[in-house]
């Protein structure tokens, strides 16, 4: 992980560098099957955020996406203040859901677009109908790792699940037990085990996937 603290506030964000570079490399409309250096760079930054909670990489993603989300928001929501809310909510989700991003399923741009669109839908409901509901993510599935979040929900429906916790490999078991049985936050668990929070998230995901496969065998 890059050492963010040691850098000055002026240099650590790399504002606009990614955009300037990628605009030089590419021009005009793009086709998805062409080699795409910008997409590769975005994917690299996402990995850094997901696995290492790298804030500097997040700042580069922010610099790339925020102005575009802002102009989408201005068009769609017709109010500058709401467009900023859309940037804030979308980028917060990029950070918290980074571990669910799956490069095999979608480009980073597509994944961020779906998060933004879904969030914008919920905000429009509020503006138009004064409804504080959040249906966007139910309407449009996000391109994520085996729909991991939904699986997390499904798991807890069944007390049977916890019988299988003992069958997990020790590192995954430790994390699943910490989160679901001792009810620690991911950060508390990371501190306790002295591992990065990204590792907590990935062990948790692997553990839940494995539990799901135990369950499926069980019901076959």
């Amino acid at each position, binding site marked *: 992980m890059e050492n963010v603290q040691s850098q000055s506030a002026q240099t650590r964000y790399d504002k606009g560098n990614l955009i300037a570079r990628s605009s030089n490399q590419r021009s005009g409309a*793009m086709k998805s099957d062409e080699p795409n250096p910008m997409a590769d760079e975005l994917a690299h930054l996402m990995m850094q955020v997901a696995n290492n909670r790298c804030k500097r990489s997040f700042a580069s993603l922010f610099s790339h996406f925020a102005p575009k989300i802002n102009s989408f928001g201005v068009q769609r929501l017709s109010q500058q203040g709401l467009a900023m809310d859309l940037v*804030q909510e979308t980028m917060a989700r990029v950070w918290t859901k980074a571990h669910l991003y799956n490069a095999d399923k979608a480009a980073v741009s597509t994944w961020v*677009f779906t998060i933004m669109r879904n969030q914008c839908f919920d905000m429009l409901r509020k503006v138009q109908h004064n409804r504080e509901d959040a249906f966007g993510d139910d309407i449009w599935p996000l391109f994520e790792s085996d729909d991991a979040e939904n699986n997390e929900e499904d798991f807890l429906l069944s007390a049977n699940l916890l019988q299988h916790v003992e069958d997990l490999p020790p590192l995954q078991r430790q994390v699943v037990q910490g989160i679901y049985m001792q009810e620690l936050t991911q950060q508390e668990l990371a501190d306790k085990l002295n591992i990065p929070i990204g590792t907590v998230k990935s062990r948790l995901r692997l553990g839940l996937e494995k539990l799901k496969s135990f369950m499926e065998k069980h019901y076959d």
Partner: protein
Amino acid sequence: MINYHPDQHLLSLHAKGELPLSMSIAISAHAELCSHCRQQLNQMTIALSEQEFEQQQTVAEQFDDAGLSGLLDQFMSSTLDNLDTEPTPQPQVVDNTVTIKGEQYALPRVFRKQINASWQGIGKVSRLRLDTGEPQARASLLHIAANGEIPEHTHKGAELTLLLAGEFSDCYNTYKPGDFMLLDQAHQHSPKTTEGCLCYTIVDAPLYFTKGFSKLLNPIGDLLY
């Protein structure tokens, strides 16, 4: 085999997130049942994301103008750390099935927070209203028991019927689960079913639920409506 699909225009409005909730539910549920439309929506979403996020843009100055620098500073100094210490949201128990007249149906995922009312009905026809908060459209689940029918009717506006389970026929055709039928007010029909069926319907919505938000927000559009 699904024979009736939303048209390209509706699919594209859906990919953009521009349709009202009642219609978004219908397209999402259809796409869960129809791999063809699911594929098309994926392609449209990829194209839209490239258009929005990978186009050339000179944004270095706009970045500061729009107040994005301040927002980024805030993210770096506190928001990200705060997000990481927020507790994992407590998972919710969601029962995504409905039971009517002894039949249990598993619903497409999009319905999981939408079923909050109870069934009302007479005879073989039962209806469960969805509270979409849209005064212009009435969205419901409609159940017709075996050998039931809906009396012949015309619509004031358009009528959307998405067949979720079972089968039904009208004077035009026989329909299968996943079939997506949008009829305008000129059509008259009286659906009948032999084995029973469950549908999602939206009714009485002239010009409403097939239009994008941009048109709905237009005040002149409101006057015409």
